[in-house]
């Protein structure tokens, strides 16, 4: 009796905890509402299964508890019941997988009007590169990295000449415009993670990975590293500031002129 009761409390307590938990996701600031919806669907389906299984167990424990005159029912198998359960499970799984794969296709299909930006990781700081007036990023190579060229840009590539490099600073993005973030690392694995964007992707030295998203809300959000990258891992923080298009343009102009000012003495 006590055991059955405690199991009922575990099931109900879990549901109540879920409903009243003050610990919940951050308000979303990107276009990935579909991800949140898929999580909600998954919570409902899995929650129902969990409660059903635990309550059924509790019922059995109470109803079929040992009594001296009780004999268990002898029934090695029940084909119909087993197939029926298998089919229902298959349908439940499909109901979660189908929306999941549908949204995954969107997640990896970058829209044509997305702007390329670069996020660059190294132990233990974030840097960024934004395209200049030509709207394109130049090529780069880890082996070109030097004190004068912290991101290893290929200076022979004309597209790189107007690229705006922000070393260890803040990333600014215009609201409402899709962005394709090209992710690059100089040393070890890192992971570009902004909780409010629901987006996350590893940065792997020797290759370029990507994610795309559209910021939908102006504001300041934290960039965290989500792949253990050494002892400084928790200190690897950055900031992304989503602004109205006009504010963003003003900021970009300012950065470009600073970049230029920094490059001029080197050109001499």
């Amino acid at each position, binding site marked *: 009796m006590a055991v059955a009761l405690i*199991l009922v409390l575990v099931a109900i307590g879990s549901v109540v905890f879920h409903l009243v938990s003050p610990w919940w996701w951050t308000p979303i600031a990107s276009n990935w509402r579909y991800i949140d919806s898929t999580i909600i669907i998954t919570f409902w389906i899995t929650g129902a299964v969990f409660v059903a299984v635990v309550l059924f167990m509790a019922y*059995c424990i109470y109803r079929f508890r040992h009594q001296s005159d009780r004999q268990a029912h002898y029934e*090695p*198998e029940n084909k119909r019941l087993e197939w029926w359960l298998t089919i229902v499970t298959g349908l439940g799984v499909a109901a979660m997988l189908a929306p999941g794969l549908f949204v995954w296709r969107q997640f*990896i299909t970058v829209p044509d009007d997305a702007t390329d930006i670069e996020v660059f990781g190294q132990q233990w700081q974030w840097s960024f590169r934004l395209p200049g007036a030509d709207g394109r990023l130049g090529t780069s190579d880890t082996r070109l990295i030097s004190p004068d060229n912290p991101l*290893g840009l290929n200076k022979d590539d004309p597209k790189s000449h107007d690229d705006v490099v922000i070393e260890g600073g803040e990333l600014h993005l215009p609201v409402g415009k899709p962005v394709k973030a090209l992710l690059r690392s100089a040393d070890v694995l890192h992971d570009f993670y902004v909780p409010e964007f629901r987006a996350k992707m590893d940065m792997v030295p020797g290759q370029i990975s990507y994610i795309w998203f559209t910021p939908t809300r102006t504001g300041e959000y934290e960039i965290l590293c*989500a792949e253990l990258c050494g002892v400084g*891992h928790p200190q690897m*923080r950055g900031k992304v500031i989503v602004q109205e298009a006009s504010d963003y343009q003003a900021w970009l102009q300012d950065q470009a002129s600073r970049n230029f000012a920094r490059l001029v003495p080197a050109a001499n």
Partner: protein
Amino acid sequence: MVDMPLGPAGVGVPADVEDVELYHPHSWVTKYVFSQDAKVIAIQYSFVALSVGLIALVLSWLMRLQLGFPGVFSFIDANAYYQFITMHGMMMVVYVLTALFLGGFGNYLIPLMVGARDMVFPYVNMLSFWVYLLAVLVLVGSFFAPGGPTGAGWTLYPPQAILSGTPGGQEWGIIMMLVSLMIFIIGFTMGGLNYVVTVLQARARGMTLMRMPLTVWGIFTASFMALLAFPALFVGAVMMLFDRIFGTSFFMPAIVEMGQPLERNGGSPLLFQHLFWFFGHPEVYIVALPAFGIVSDLISTHARRNIFGYRMMVWALLAIGALSFVVWAHHMYVSGMNPYFGFFFATTTLIIAVPTAIKVYNWILTLWRGNIHLTVPMLFALAFIVTFVNGGLTGLFLGNVVVDVPLSDTMFVVAHFHMVMGVAPILVIFGAIYHWYPKVTGRMLDDTLGKIHFWVTFLGAYAIFFPMHYLGLMGIPRRYYELGEMAFVPPSAHTLNAFITIVALIVGATQLVFVFNLFWSLRHGRPSGGNPWRATTLEWQTPETPPPHGNWGKDLPVVYRWAYDYSVPGADQDFLPQNQPGITRAAPGSLHG
């Protein structure tokens, strides 16, 4: 053996192979130390694995102290913290759970449950344990090496695992870890071949494959998988060792480390991740399948009811085993691999939920219309179902590629895998120890201490890991030495972290009750007799308890029925041992023969 002709009553015709004389010990040393008896080897394996488990438990306390009360304990700096999490993870997954289920329970139960005198290669079996012990010593030795153990996380991802930004990366830590893993795999291979060949070749007459207890099926399938999966880790370890010691570039692309270019080029960090998870995912089921098997037998025995849908249970085990080799990259959805892989691996991963769900249904349908004895082993089995279902269902979040994106690398993942492959299998281990301790020692473990141990462990572990999911949902990343200032994290999250730490300390301390019970009951436990649970399987039918070397006395048992003849209508008691002749009812024998 499978095609062995059966007589009219399902009894095998006499084997024409002579009973082979075992190597009987001649001294105390060959009996208790360098023993070739699988049962002694099982106890040696279990003792070492449980000791490593206690070390790993203390490590988990230390990391929880840091997470719950950051900065309070000055001896836990970032280096030490990462070393603790790495060693805790690797110890628990490989050196505790794998070693205990296969080396411990496998050695004890396989020969007894299939009616053999011993493993088929007793000498190799003995070597397996001593090689395992060496692997443990090397691993624990890395605590005392210059620079300490590696702090790369148990996944040991390069390039960071062998670079200076990671504890032990440029010192001894990572080398000792890789060498220890290689030794472990060599030792495991010796044991694993034994388990597989013994099940295939040394079963008693009449013990057809489809009459074997599910415990044997689970351990057999897991051993077979481990033999296929561990080589991938071995190869990865060799390559990383070359990268670390000889400066090769298997996993090392062009790297500029702290402003200094390294003389490496062309390697692929992702290659290691594929090798690691090709091992690492089957590894989850290498731990889970023996637990599935054991828990099936616990539930059936203590509910006095045949396991429901035995054949479906066997096929589900095999299906899970096979599928687990084609799901590995679900650990890598956000690794930067080709994103189109996501479609394939999400589909295979969610398909594996179907045979897994069948197992859960059959466990709870075994309770249905049973005659449930709430013994301590049964309590642990029931708690296993609750935690396994909970952890399995959150796997449907993480397996479903796009849902994994926000949750990956957060505390949600930590909560998920602890629930499903930490808490759940460990509850089975405890249940199994309470269940089989009488066979090993001839005495029962104390019931009251067992119940205290059970309730604190089950409810405590649930209270630790259930709320932890919600920290991850909020976005708190895992493997953070300290959260520091995070604008989106409210103060209440820190309170929850402190709560989790306190519960973890209590649950950890409660394990001392269990350890005390193990030693106290050796002398003071109630004498159990040979078959205290009135179970059907062969290990309970030995002529002596504890069984001596050779297990069966003069004659090997002959098996007449499947392992689940509980409460057979018309029988004069509520269980019919597998070696009891006389078919009171034809159905089960012919159905499963």
